[in-house]
């Protein structure tokens, strides 16, 4: 570098140090910076993935929220509720105001449900079971279900309440009475009652949120004043920003090596677990995997021990623990941790002999989702494992959008797909029904296209039996059946690991007695604590 360039660099460095120094005294306001890989969808009716959930849980409120450190749910916007057959009645708080200043009433709850159903996007399928919702009076709302659905209360954590009046004032172009249901407006603005308001939202870049001073609950002073949620940062960028003190919480999608490097550099590791797993799904309609024996051969050949080794971050923290079956340990119907699955080459070879197709005639398509680099390593692991059986396979990288399109037809669905699936409401029904019920096939969750009468029957029992013990029994049986028909290689029980700076404490993601047991809920900003003087 010549002298000119060097002095220019020096001048710039000087300038940036100056700006930092100048910014320091005004530190009364605390800023929390985090990132997510996916684009953030602000419209609560379309929220489905992790980034959307973080936005939804902070900008909007739901009638109930999961209890911390315990099963079950506690009142939130609702004061109390009661169930009578297929009717669920909620009594609402009367002191809640939306961020617009409008009071929250039963009308808003009805509107929120109808909007969700009309758009039919995101997690709206959770509410297909609802026949109608009715505002009994200002503060009472009644939901009538088409058929018995035991985990309905759990579903309510996925029904964000939208400010009807505000949305109706801002309808965009569209056909019919409701025009666009406020889609254009809600994709860039908030109409919630949540603890944080949206001050700017750019789906490709970042969403900036501010504390809502008029929130109906007290927000502790330690909660961050401003939150910046940035999208699509590269792992190397996040890694450096955190170690330079310019970023606070990473996404869960950092590779284990990067998390390890951060932990070695003094970052804390936050975890969220118990609601989902890593599922390696086999297309049961496509030969040779339409034969259960062939699937069992692969299930037994998979190297479970290496996969656990691959996701270990530090000796104490890992991105997952050994799987024991289709249901993650701790959830209703799961097996105990000591039943961990292991690979068994001899059994694999036996099943292979019983398989209708000879191994050399296999040509398996092993897909991996381009957005999740870790899956490429699993693809390679499988290719190596299956090669030990003499099975040939081909690795195929697929962007998420393309994958979601291809799985809508069984013949386009690859032989093997790798997916992280979790119970979106924390209840096993929302984990398993979408994956294995025969009529639910054709979505990203169900590339198995499983069609098994016994599985269907048990899944139906799980959602209709109302007593907890009976449900546990049904899921236990289901778990066994799912091991027999082997539509899936149950890779591992997933634990999300986030690297975070020392500037922030997140009890919900570090103290098991404060954990919500619902993905994304740990990112409730009002319960986070910014540390003084750092």
């Amino acid at each position, binding site marked *: 570098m010549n002298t000119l360039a060097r002095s220019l*660099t020096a001048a710039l460095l000087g300038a940036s140090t100056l700006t930092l120094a100048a910014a320091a005294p005004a530190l009364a306001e605390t800023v929390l910076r985090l990132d997510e890989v996916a684009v953030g969808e602000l419209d609560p009716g379309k929220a489905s993935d992790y980034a959307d959930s973080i936005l939804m849980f902070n900008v909007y409120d739901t009638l109930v929220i999961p209890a911390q450190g315990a099963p079950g749910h506690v009142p939130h916007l609702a004061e109390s509720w009661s169930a009578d057959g297929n009717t669920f009645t909620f009594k609402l708080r009367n002191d809640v105001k939306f961020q617009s200043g409008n009071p929250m009433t039963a009308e808003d709850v009805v509107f929120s449900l109808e909007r969700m159903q009309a758009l039919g996007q995101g997690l709206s399928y959770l509410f297909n079971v609802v026949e109608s919702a009715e505002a009994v009076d200002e503060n009472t709302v009644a939901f009538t279900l088409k058929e018995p659905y035991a985990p309905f209360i759990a579903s309510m954590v996925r029904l964000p309440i939208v400010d009807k009046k505000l949305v109706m004032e801002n309808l965009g172009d569209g056909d019919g009475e409701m025009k666009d249901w406020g889609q254009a407006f809600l994709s860039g603005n908030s109409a919630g009652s949540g603890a944080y308001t949206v001050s700017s939202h750019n789906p490709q870049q970042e969403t900036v949120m501010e504390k809502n001073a008029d929130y109906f609950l007290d927000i502790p002073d330690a909660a961050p004043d401003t939150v910046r949620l940035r999208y699509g940062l590269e792992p190397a960028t996040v890694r450096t*920003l955190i170690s330079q003190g310019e970023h606070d919480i990473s996404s869960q999608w950092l590779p284990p090596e990067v998390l390890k490097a951060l932990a070695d550099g003094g970052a804390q590791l936050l975890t969220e677990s118990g609601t989902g797993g890593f599922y390696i799904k086999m297309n049961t309609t496509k030969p040779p995997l339409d034969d259960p024996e062939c699937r069992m051969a692969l299930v037994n050949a998979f190297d479970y021990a290496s996969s656990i080794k691959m996701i270990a971050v530090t000796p104490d923290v890992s991105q997952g623990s050994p799987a024991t079956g289709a249901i993650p340990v701790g959830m209703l119907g799961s097996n105990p941790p000591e039943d961990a699955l292991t690979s068994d080459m001899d059994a694999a070879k036996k099943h292979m002999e019983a398989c209708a197709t000879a191994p050399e005639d296999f040509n398996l398509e092993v897909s991996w989702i381009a957005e999740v680099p870790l899956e490429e390593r699993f693809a390679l692991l499988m290719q190596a494992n299956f090669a030990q059986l003499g099975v040939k396979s081909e690795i195929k990288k697929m962007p998420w959008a393309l994958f979601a399109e291809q799985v809508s037809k069984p013949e386009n669905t690859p032989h093997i797909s790798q997916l992280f699936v979790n119970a979106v409401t924390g209840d096993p029904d929302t984990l398993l029904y979408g994956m294995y019920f025969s009529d639910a096939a054709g979505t990203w969750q169900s590339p198995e296209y499983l069609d098994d009468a016994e599985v269907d029957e048990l899944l139906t029992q799980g959602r209709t039996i109302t007593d907890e013990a009976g449900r546990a029994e049904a899921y236990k049986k289901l778990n066994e059946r799912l091991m027999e028909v082997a539509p899936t290689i149950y890779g591992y029980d997933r634990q999300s690991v986030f690297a975070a700076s020392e500037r922030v404490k997140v009890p919900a993601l570090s103290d098991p007695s404060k954990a919500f047991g619902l993905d994304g809920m740990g990112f409730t900003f009002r319960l986070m604590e910014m540390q003084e003087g750092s």
Partner: protein
Amino acid sequence: MSPVVRLLAKRLSISVIVLIGVSMLIFTIARVIPGDPARIALGPNATAEQVEQLRQRLHLEDPIWVQYGYFVRNLAHGDLGVSLYTNRPVLTDIAQFLPATLELVIVAGIFMVCLGMPLGILSARYRGRMADNLIRVVSLLGVSAPSFVWAVILMLLFAFFLPLFPIAGQISDTIPPPHRVTGFLLVDSLIDGNFKAFFSALHHIILPAFALALSGIGQAARLTRANMVETYDKPYIEMAESYGFAPRRIANKFAFRPSLIPSLTIIGLDFAAMLGNAFLVEAVFAWPGLSRYGVQVILRKDLNAIVGTVLVISAMFLIVNIIVDLLIAYINPRIRLANGGRT
């Protein structure tokens, strides 16, 4: 009509024909390839009816020339359609992301001209000597790696191991960005009189712009040298030397000027190529430009956005080339004098 105006008119009309061709080409490519954009846009949980409705709305059921007709009709109203990925008009999206990309390319272009040409002049003046050989090797190295390799190497050296520059983004998080007037952060911060933001933006742009410029710098240096060496061999230089003109003056006046024209042409092409290479550098430095948008819309088969993005980038490409042609016309004494002689 003066020759310059005639040239401009000719170039503009050819550009329009070319742009129509580009739009047809990319329109066809985007549509003949399998994959259902409606299904991708609506996501995995949409019903078959919803997909069908969207297909109707997008005219995907019509023959391709009818679809192209709709496209042209909307384009005439300055409408490139709505992106299925962001649910916003494609033009709004592009207007949001293009300035950051252009800013990067322009700064890189400045590096290219201000570093590449002087290096070429030096090299030519000291041709055959140590300095010349060194510059030649370095500039050939510059051309020999894609910009993402330079981006990774520069990032590793000057952001990780020697943390002189920030590793990502366009401006520091702690600094409130200036009001958006032009979309160019460097310009907007100056309009605001916000020097903190200006220096932060400058600090952030140097590394990515340099990575983007490196191959251009090499190219510019090599061409300038080659053309100057050629003119150095011309008899009039020898004559100037024998008349006792200072070497510096010979270099500037007699050797550099004439060699400027061919260099400029190639520099124009390089500058335009940087519009494409910017995608690579943006990916490395998390630069909030058109790159991520472009890659995302391509992966999602977002037809309107793909056609719109490629069309706008091609238009930029053509505009740059026209500007270069005009510059050449202005510099070239034959054209300029012809102009003076006729009017």
